[in-house]
């Protein structure tokens, strides 16, 4: 098969959208945090915790949706911890974020080993099944790619619309955007900066965790160590690439996923001349490249990473 022909197969786009789904959730989560002025480097760990929480709930007999909900709650808890340390206490968002990633990851592994001490290959669950949308799913290519996915993928797209609506069309979204730009504007209007930021980080972290849960309950059917594998860091790059706008970040996530799906297929047809590791490196390298391309003209939320003290301006 020709490399370019891949781009026109439905199965390629099905895979791309599937790969994009967890990234979309987590990118939206990070975007909310950063729009409120908090860089959340806990993302990698929170996704790990979400992946485990979702899977473990289902494994313990819970419903799939219950798994997603539990994952979101676990994510929000880590988000609250992050926010407590970085918002009212104003601690370094870099250090706390890395700390949250280490904590969430290690707690996940600890809990996994505690729950399943002797297991060598992780047990499987029955994951979300594709749910073709009547009518739309019979469209050529697009029908299969976009409308024959699992419910969680649809939810990912819904989350983009919801985040966009909230940020640009609701009073609270106004407050979130303002607090990331100039917190004193928010305080002067009688809204709590701490409240908005804490809320944004908690909700954002919940979305990240759902992104993690997608991997265990929709893309695969079990939990294994290191399964997040840098996806969280890539989402941080995607937020920058998307200029902190939900729509652009969505496009970024899909482009990235398409590239990822493409390199897997390219790997198969390259016949082993090029080491497979080179293909695996590409997504990470691409993320760095994307950052270089956009960084110069990126307009950061001005208060990003700057702690706020009441009455200070």
């Amino acid at each position: 098969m020709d490399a370019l022909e891949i781009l026109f197969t439905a199965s390629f786009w099905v895979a791309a959208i599937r790969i994009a789904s967890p990234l979309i959730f987590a990118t939206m989560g990070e975007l909310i945090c950063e729009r409120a002025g908090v860089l959340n480097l806990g993302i990698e760990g929170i996704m790990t915790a979400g992946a485990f929480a979702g899977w473990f709930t289902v494994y313990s007999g819970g419903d799939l949706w219950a798994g997603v909900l539990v994952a979101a709650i676990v994510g929000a808890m880590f988000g609250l911890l992050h926010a407590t340390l970085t918002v009212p206490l104003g601690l370094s968002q870099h250090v706390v974020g890395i700390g949250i990633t280490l904590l969430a990851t290690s707690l996940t592994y600890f809990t996994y080993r505690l729950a399943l001490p002797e297991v060598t290959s992780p047990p499987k669950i029955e994951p979300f099944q594709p749910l073709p949308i009547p009518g739309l799913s019979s469209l050529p290519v697009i029908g299969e790619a976009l409308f024959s996915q699992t419910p969680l993928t649809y939810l990912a797209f819904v989350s983009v619309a919801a985040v966009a609506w909230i940020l640009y069309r609701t009073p609270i979204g106004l407050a979130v955007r303002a607090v990331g730009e100039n917190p004193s504007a928010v305080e002067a209007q009688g809204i709590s900066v701490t409240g908005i930021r804490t809320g944004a980080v908690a909700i954002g972290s919940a979305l990240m965790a759902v992104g993690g849960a997608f991997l265990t309950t929709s893309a695969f059917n079990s939990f294994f160590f290191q399964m997040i594998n840098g996806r969280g860091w890539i989402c941080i790059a995607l937020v920058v690439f998307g200029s902190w706008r939900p729509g652009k970040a969505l496009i970024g996530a899909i482009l990235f996923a398409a590239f990822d799906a493409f390199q897997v297929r390219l790997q198969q047809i390259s016949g082993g001349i090029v080491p497979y590791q080179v293909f695996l490196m590409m997504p990470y390298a691409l993320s760095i490249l994307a950052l270089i391309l956009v960084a110069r003209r990126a307009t950061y939320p001005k208060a990003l990473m700057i702690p706020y003290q009441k009455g200070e301006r």
Partner: protein
Amino acid sequence: MRLEPKLAPSLAVTLLFPLAAIATTLVLTSMLVLVAGASPLSVFYLVAKGAAGSQFALMETLTRATPLIFTGLAIAVAFRAKLWNIGAEAQLYIGGVVTVVLGTGTLPLPSVVLIPVIMVAVMAAGALLLLGPAVLKTRFGVDEVVTTLLLNFIVLLFVSMLLEGVLKDPMGLGWPQSQKVIAEAQLPRLIQGKRLHYGFAIALVSAVLVWVVMKRTVLGYEMRAVGHNPEGARFVGILVNRTLMKTALLSGGLAALAGFSEVSGLKGNLTLDLSPGYGYTGIVVAMLAILNPLGVIASAIFVAGIFVGADAMSRAAKVPSYIADVMVATSLLSMVVAILLARFRIRWR
């Protein structure tokens, strides 16, 4: 709620807060131990015994502390200048690669020449690896956190490629591992018959040297000034970007030495599990030491002790050894809070 700076933190407070952070960590993690159905006291006793209860245990702890001193120093140096190097893991592996490339017979030199040559080459490689993100930061404004993190994945894949390709040990029964380094490239044991090797001594010397650089030299002064206030540093004539470059070179070089020390002193060859996350743990080590190079020695030994002790403990009690990772992460977060409380007073109104 407001934070008000304390005028002069007393010495007692300064010494007390690391202890308070450790105490907090123990309290929090003992809850996990209770969940696991074990007694916290006996578990912590087993951890302590496993870490320092015998000469063997102590040697093991110091051996494990060696790479952590290097990565801890690398992070301490970088964070001082607020260069967020989260890529010590990658720099460590590059150090391992260079050690193997030069140490497997490529350079037929006597030990006294070969080892310094390898060390210089290793440091240069690690330094160059961090120089990339530093240049991207200063020239293009790309956040170095993300680039160094992503480089960790790229470098690990690169090492995997080498170990399945050009560096693959033909006698390795198909495992992705390199050949052993030659005897001349090996760091001798510090004590006959024990695993503790000269890497530990080099780490101690490095810590002292880094301390001197930070406290006594113009470069250390510039790094601290840039870290505290880049605008203010630029105003008094410090070349901020150049200082960040120098910081990157020093930090990357130090992290790479961890890889050299592990390959040359302990493992003998390069594998994909050379480091169980020493690069990331180095962040905790550096923060526990409040970025003080001499403090890094103590905190690296402490953190290594937790890992070694937890391994021993988990064999005896039914508590997963991942408790060590939880303790380390918790201590990082408790420590940053403790530092804050030592410097500021929280006023609720």
